[in-house]
């Protein structure tokens, strides 16, 4: 077994666990960035340097920054009380037990499989690009449409709408919101 893989995989597992059990949202996001970086190391050693770079640039660089901006805009901290009241060991025990059963099943299935050793061959970005723009051309176009829909949807949903209330409909004593 490879030492680099074991170190990176254990860092990824521990930081993913910390990110879902953390109460502070910013700390959870930073742990998730650490997990993504170690997964990109695993991509690199298994012969996918292009994907490792994409993971760092797009996931850890763009998506996580978007998350951090939203967390900072919302100034989270007061939403935690409800979850603290709700999150007792009785509620999280059942999903954890079910996930452990699923993990045991996975280990059993992997032990049934005969062991194959993968010697990683580096697949260059050129090969990926050729495959992307010949075999998967339709899928690339569909992905473009999906990204366009994502942009339009985010713009439409992110707009702050002003509430228009007619002045006769407002009860006396209550102020009109937004004025």
């Amino acid at each position: 077994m490879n030492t680099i893989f074991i170190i990176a995989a254990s860092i990824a597992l521990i930081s993913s666990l910390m990110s879902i059990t953390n109460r502070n949202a910013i700390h959870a996001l930073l742990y998730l960035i650490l997990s993504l970086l170690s997964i990109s190391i695993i991509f690199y050693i298994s012969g996918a340097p292009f994907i490792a770079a994409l993971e760092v640039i797009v996931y850890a660089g763009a998506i996580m920054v978007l998350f951090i901006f939203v967390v900072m805009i919302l100034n989270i901290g007061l939403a935690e009380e409800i979850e603290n009241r709700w999150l007792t060991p009785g509620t999280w025990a059942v999903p954890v037990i079910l996930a452990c059963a699923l993990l045991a099943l996975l280990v059993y299935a992997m032990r049934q499989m005969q062991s194959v050793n993968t010697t990683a061959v580096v697949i260059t970005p050129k090969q990926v690009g050729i495959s992307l723009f010949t075999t998967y051309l339709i899928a690339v176009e569909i992905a473009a449409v999906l990204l366009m829909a994502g942009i339009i949807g985010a713009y439409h949903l992110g707009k702050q709408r002003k509430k228009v209330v007619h002045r006769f409909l407002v009860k006396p004593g209550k102020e009109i919101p937004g004025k």
Partner: protein
Amino acid sequence: MVTISMEIQLLFAGMIFLIGLVGFLVRRNVIFMLLSIEIMLNSAGLAFVIAGSHWMQTDGQVMFIFILTVSAAEVSVGLALILQMYNHFRTLDADSISKLRDKKVI
């Protein structure tokens, strides 16, 4: 470059996926639920790349690029929805957006 047994790698991807699944089921904060979805999508992409490097084909990496696209679109729309939800309800608790039900939960 290096020799790693494939089932250990796939097992690792499955463990990351299960961590994301538990996080999605347990947490009630919407931001954490979205974050768990990110973990799950990423582990699915990891499994694709591992299988692609095992058979020395480019298809795994191409699939990872598509997963990346889907995840980016999903995160942008989801975060816009979270902003709207916070503007309406002043909370990030997923149980508070159950206005279509009769009884008040919590």
